[in-house]
């Protein structure tokens, strides 16, 4: 490899997660490749955040069902990440010497790719995950990290007290230095929750990754091991208060909600912001056709769709067909799915390429949506069973 010029900051994106709690949605694809918001995938958000923040060198760590994700990322061109130096690099697990090692924890995944990071001799490394929907300027966070002379800076969100016990909570001093990190505390002392976005000074991170590898009891995880160890060792770990929309789309319900949120400007995420574009790989499809007799309200509809029925508060991905007399409400229709005449879809996610047959009803109006049960995922199983 040619010597690569130095980059001040590079980003490492953890995209290996299986996303168990997304169930059927991640049966054949990795979580970051899950479709979102009409024409995006979850990974479009961290990738677009990077390029909009001026970070043009990104390692994407993959492990679980990566084919679709790899093909989607490709050369990185859709995110303007096809560069002579840097750009986006897929980092799968590999065989070294005569042994192959899967990525164990998040920290181990980075540890195994330290040679990649070293190529660019960065000063700072941003660690991101591919599970969250938000817009953030990482450059501002790096400036903050520099100001604080921090070794590690963790983006935090102020959450309602009743939700705090579901998060990793940071207990901070007045200057926002973190003196304690508690993973899902029963009695939270603070409401500052980790967003899973870290800025590390590379020298420091390297030191801790190497130490952590030698610790046989470690889970090799950032949240469980690296960060607590750094705090205990009195390293300068700071919280960076983030304001704005942020959503972990780790469950079917959260994914559904995050989709619905983009329909509602008050919810705080505007995907149509020319100063902070969310990039994605565009399908080659004709414009959408809205037929006579169609009725559409508060919905996002994209290229290749044909709508002749009723669509309310829903999101239609590329190539979706909604026939005459069909009714789609509060639902997400994944690419190339079809709702036939007189079929009804409510509070549902219809998976790619599937057809809801004529007259069939999918999903129902939940009394209160409290958990995943509220949302029906219409997948091949349903088709085969029914």
């Amino acid at each position, binding site marked *: 490899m040619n010597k690569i010029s130095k980059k001040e900051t590079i980003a490492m994106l953890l995209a290996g997660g299986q996303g168990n709690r997304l169930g059927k949605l991640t049966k054949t694809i990795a979580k970051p490749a899950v479709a979102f918001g009409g*024409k995006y995938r979850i990974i479009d958000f961290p990738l677009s955040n990077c390029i909009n923040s001026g970070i043009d060198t990104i390692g994407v760590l993959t492990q679980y069902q990566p084919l679709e994700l790899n093909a989607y990322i490709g050369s990185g061109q859709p995110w303007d990440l096809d560069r002579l130096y840097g750009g986006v690099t897929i980092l799968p697990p590999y065989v070294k010497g005569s042994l192959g090692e899967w990525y164990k924890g998040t920290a181990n995944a980075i540890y195994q790719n330290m040679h990649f990071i070293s190529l660019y001799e960065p000063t700072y490394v941003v660690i991101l995950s591919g599970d969250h929907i938000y817009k953030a300027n990482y450059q501002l966070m790096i400036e903050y990290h520099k100001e604080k002379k921090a070794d590690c800076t963790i983006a935090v969100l102020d959450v309602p007290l009743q939700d705090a016990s579901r998060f990793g909570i940071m207990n901070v001093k007045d200057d926002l230095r973190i003196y304690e990190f508690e993973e899902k505390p029963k009695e939270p002392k603070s409401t500052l929750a980790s967003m899973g976005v870290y800025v590390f000074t590379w020298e420091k991170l390297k030191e801790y990754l190497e130490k952590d590898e030698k610790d046989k009891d470690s889970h090799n995880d950032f949240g469980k091991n690296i960060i607590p160890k750094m705090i205990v060792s009195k390293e300068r770990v700071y919280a960076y208060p983030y304001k704005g929309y942020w959503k972990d789309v780790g469950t079917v319900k959260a994914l559904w909600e995050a989709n619905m949120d983009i329909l509602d400007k008050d919810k705080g995420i505007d995907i149509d912001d020319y100063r902070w574009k*969310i990039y994605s790989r565009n399908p*080659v499809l*004709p*414009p959408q*056709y*809205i*037929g006579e007799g169609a009725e*559409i309200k508060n919905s996002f*509809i994209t290229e290749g769709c044909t709508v002749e029925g009723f669509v309310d508060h829903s999101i239609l991905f590329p190539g979706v067909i909604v026939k005459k007399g069909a009714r789609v409400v509060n639902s997400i229709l994944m690419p190339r799915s079809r709702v036939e005449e007189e079929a009804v879809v409510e509070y549902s996610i219809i998976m790619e390429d599937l057809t809801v047959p004529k007259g069939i009803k999918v999903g129902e109006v939940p009394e209160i949506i409290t958990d995943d049960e509220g949302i029906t995922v219409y997948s091949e199983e349903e088709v085969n069973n029914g």
Partner: protein
Amino acid sequence: MDRVMGIILAYSDRAAMRELTKVRTLASLPVAGKYRIIDFLLSGFVNSGIYDISVITNNNYHSLMDHLESGKNWDLMRKTGGLRLLTPLSRADYFTGEYKGTLDALNRNLYSIKKSDAEYIILSGSSIVCNLDYGEVMEEHIKSKADLTALYTRSLNGGKTVPRGVGVLKTNKDGRIYDLYINEDDVKLQDVNWCLEIFIMKKSLLETLVADAVSVGMTDFYMDVVKRLAATLNMKGIEVTEQFFEISDVKGYMRANMNFLNEEYRRKAFKRPVFTKIKDSVPTLYREGCYVSNSLISDGCKIEGTVINSILSRGVRVEQGAFVTDSIIMQNTDIKQGANVRYVISDKNVIIREGREVTGHEKYTVLIEKSTIV
């Protein structure tokens, strides 16, 4: 199709297009919402496996260059072949100014055509919207041993009036072309072979024909090559049995667009992919209270008003109470609250202010120039 090179003459703008070609070439005129005419032509080549394409343009080609960029979006950024934009003035001083006609355009770019190691040339105009599969016609051309094959249709503009300037091929019963004429007035002819402006021949023949004709001062490929040599060369016509719409006046432009609202035509036109420039638009947002019917809508629009029998390009806003019908609305047009737009072609970046009314008629489309505020 490794041995075939496509040439698109991308500059035949005609006065009858009014302001539509004031800021662009005909080839880069928006059509069917998010496309330009050239998207269909390029996609036809690419879908047929032809990846070696020259686009010859004359002037006013800024929008064309801006649209095509590296050719990457049409899979035409290649190490061998790929897309080339050929402009006048690009070569040494003995050629100056704009092209004098199609023959001059070809002649002044022969140096580039000669470099390709293609065996065949498909020469295409840019005033007919088509996403042709060239596989079969190429085979037929080779089998027929014709020197030159011209493609024609018997169904142009859905049988409606064809404006002057379009060529008609006279063929005898074995398909041989014995004459060509250009209709000199708007006509409604049945049973004639409308020339599609697409010609197939060996590259070596094109080179010879162009050099010969230019050396005796001729300028037009139609009249000075095809018509003049119809008796000497073995020229065949091949009928393509699809519906074609040509764009040489505003009426034709309207017709070619509106035809995309027809399901059958749309299905055929998009059977093979049509590539265009990627714009990273968001999906279109349909707000409470909107009403949309029989319309083709591109991404990036926001619709709160009414849109009927219309075609919207990317980034169009139709505000509450606004009413758009039987119109073509190009990119980033803002139609403000309560405005009323009927039988209108609105060029890019137009603003129609609150409550304004712009109304044409089925027989006469009103045209709003680029970046106008009405």
